[in-house]
């Protein structure tokens, strides 16, 4: 097991003018489950493949433990790409399916047996070692496939959208399994997904990338509560955070017919407007505040989501709010919202960077 360090690692494709991954600085702790997440083309897969040795590193370094692997061939990096080779061999026992790569590598028989036993114990497959894959359920077969990677005892597991070929239900099940398995094994894992829910539910920490640049790396909780910029604020969370461009006024930000108080110092460097973020669950119905006309009411039982429009001057802004499901406002009505105290995120309207406040 080992740490992984990206040290200003850069990938520039031949003929490209902008790096696919731009001076990535990221340190992953020993045993940590780190998820790389971002929209298509953000550089998350490229980052993973740089670590795997599949992509050339054009600048900076990549280290596994203290070892600089920047130019080391993939098979000598002591990493395992999980789920890449998923086929199981029908005539071989589960034990042989898990251990055959060790056999190829010339590992002594006793050692293979020991490692397969260990992996089977962790994977709950001990009773199935002598069986053929045909006799296993779908989930068990997946675990056998994971066993192939586990018995190699690599320093790092790499997973590139491993759940993409599963249906929605199986995806949720499997992601729980992978996360709990990783915790039991304690092997450093780098996991790539485009799905922020997957990222937030699985990772010890989550790294958000956009346009090849690392936006933020934090625990899911911190990422949710304290996004460093507008992009992260909008990307993490479902439904997404309301990001409203609102006028700055004396004593705070104009929030409809009320003022959201912000200390003077925090607003010193901003312009006329500010981006104010409130998560849908932090919007509270009030007498005064932001006037929102209700377009759609989505009733979910205990809760309801209001999809509405904030009319402000000439521009309309979509607003989402979570309200009590037992008495939601009617479609077509206009209601007012106030943000929950202490749950407001402010971002500079130009740079998009978070503005720290004491409130």
């Amino acid at each position, binding site marked *: 097991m080992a740490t992984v360090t990206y040290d200003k690692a850069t990938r520039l*494709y*031949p*003929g490209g003018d902008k790096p696919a991954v731009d001076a990535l600085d990221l340190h992953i702790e020993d045993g940590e489950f780190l998820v790389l997440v971002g929209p298509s083309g953000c550089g998350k897969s490229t980052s993973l493949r740089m670590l*795997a*040795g*599949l*992509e*050339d590193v054009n600048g900076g370094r990549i280290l596994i433990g203290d070892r600089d692997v920047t130019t080391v*061939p*993939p*098979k000598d990096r002591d990493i395992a790409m999980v789920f*890449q*080779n*998923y*086929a199981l*061999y*029908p*005539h*071989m026992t589960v034990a*042989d399916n898990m251990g*055959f*790569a060790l*056999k*190829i590598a010339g590992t002594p028989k006793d050692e293979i047996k020991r490692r397969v036993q260990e992996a089977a114990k962790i994977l709950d497959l001990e009773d199935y070692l002598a069986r053929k894959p045909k006799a296993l359920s779908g989930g068990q077969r997946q675990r056998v496939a994971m066993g192939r990677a586990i018995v190699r005892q690599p320093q790092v597991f790499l997973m590139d959208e491993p759940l*993409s*070929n*599963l*249906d929605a239900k199986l995806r949720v099940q499997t992601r729980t399994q992978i996360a709990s398995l990783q915790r039991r094994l304690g092997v450093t894992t780098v996991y790539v997904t485009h799905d922020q829910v997957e990222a937030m539910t699985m990772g010890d920490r989550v790294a958000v990338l956009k346009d090849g640049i690392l936006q933020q790396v934090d625990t899911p909780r911190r990422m949710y509560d304290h996004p460093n910029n507008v992009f992260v604020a909008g990307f993490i969370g479902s439904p997404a955070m309301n990001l409203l461009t609102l006028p700055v006024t004396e004593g705070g930000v104009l929030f409809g017919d009320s003022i959201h108080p912000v200390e003077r110092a925090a607003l010193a460097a901003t312009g006329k407007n500010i981006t104010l973020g409130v998560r849908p669950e932090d919007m509270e119905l009030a007498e005064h505040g932001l006037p929102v006309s209700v377009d759609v009411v989505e009733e979910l039982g205990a809760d309801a989501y209001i999809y509405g429009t904030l009319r402000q001057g000439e521009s309309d802004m979509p607003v989402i709010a979570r309200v009590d499901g037992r008495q939601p406002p009617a479609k077509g009505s206009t209601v007012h919202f106030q943000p929950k105290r202490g749950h407001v995120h402010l971002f500079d309207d130009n740079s998009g960077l978070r503005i720290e406040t004491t409130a």
Partner: protein
Amino acid sequence: MSLPTATSLQITASRPYPELLDLPWEVPLEDWPQHHLAALPRGISRHVVRFVKLGSRVLAVKETNAEIAHREYRMLRLLNRLEVPSVQPVGVITGRTTPDGEPLNSVLITRHLQFSLPYRALYSQTLRPDTAKRAVDALAVLLVRLHLTGFYWGDVSLSNTLFRRDAGAFAAYLVDAETGELYDQVSDGQREYDLDVARTNIAGELMDVVASGALEADMDEVLAISDRIISRYRTLWGELTEPESFEKGDRWRVEARIRRLNDLGFDVGELAITTDIDGTTVRIEPKVVDAGHHSRRLLRLTGLDAEENQARRLLNDLDSYRAATERQGDDEEIVAHEWMADCFEPVQRRIPRELRGKLEPAEVFHEVLEHRWYLSERAGRDVGLEEAAQSYMGSVLPTKPDEVAVLGVDTQALPVVRTD
């Protein structure tokens, strides 16, 4: 084109195949009724795959999610356009639901590559000494060609490849592009990874064939074959990509290079020579040549590797079978497959294990046909193939000399192959 139907089924296809609408898309592929299926060999796959008869064509249908299906469809189209040996994509169908409205997986449809064989079929149908090696060699050629095109495979294996027999050699076709990506140029890391995966997968696949009892080989032999992917690849990659500069008059160096490729096992007919703009870099691209009219036709139809006269005899029997079963109007390929399953393979299965070194399978079949004629004449009635084979295995084959040793030097290295 897109063809929405009443159930909002979406068909995206390169060519309109209206017959596609007649297939039971509201049923999970696994449960499709037999009459839609063509009895062709199935490979191992992480998805449900079925071969389907559609008019005179055979299509491979693979269930997967919409995103992957569309992606692989586009990738296969690209590869076809780049003239990489790969299966031809037909289309993608999304929006499938059961009559109850339960959503079903999307499907990717490809044309079944005529006369191609998954590697498992190679082992059950041939006694050629180095079949596995030749399959690996073909895969090495394919991998080099893919890498030259900029294609990173990600999951190189015998299972993800189809083989066409080619006069003792094989030509390999890419059949699963799911993990693949196309770049302007693949990196050395990607090539190395593909090779490492290929070596591991080939070894695993061969170990599986050994476990099934269809191949007798020890671990060292298995590793020797799987390691071959690396050595063959590297040599070929070197020959094909390392630039060699010479004056215009030095044409002999092209010849010399071709001879080196010959030594590596590639015929002159398999090579294409191109020069770069300044005329100094030679690139040689392997293709495959073959020989023998009847053996080629037999090969084309059945995947059987036979000598010329054996082939003629087998083809005659196939034609008789076709006439006897009144299948003249059917796709020759399908009839040939049924003939294999109904006639050729049952005879092979009857050969006792200890007598398998006697004769090549095609020769055994030929002799069984002779024996049947003899029995029929004697009995004054048409003796069936099974009865004839049983009689032949019991009374004739044991008396034959063991021909393994006299067929040629290579044959002595022949692993004992057993049909499934």
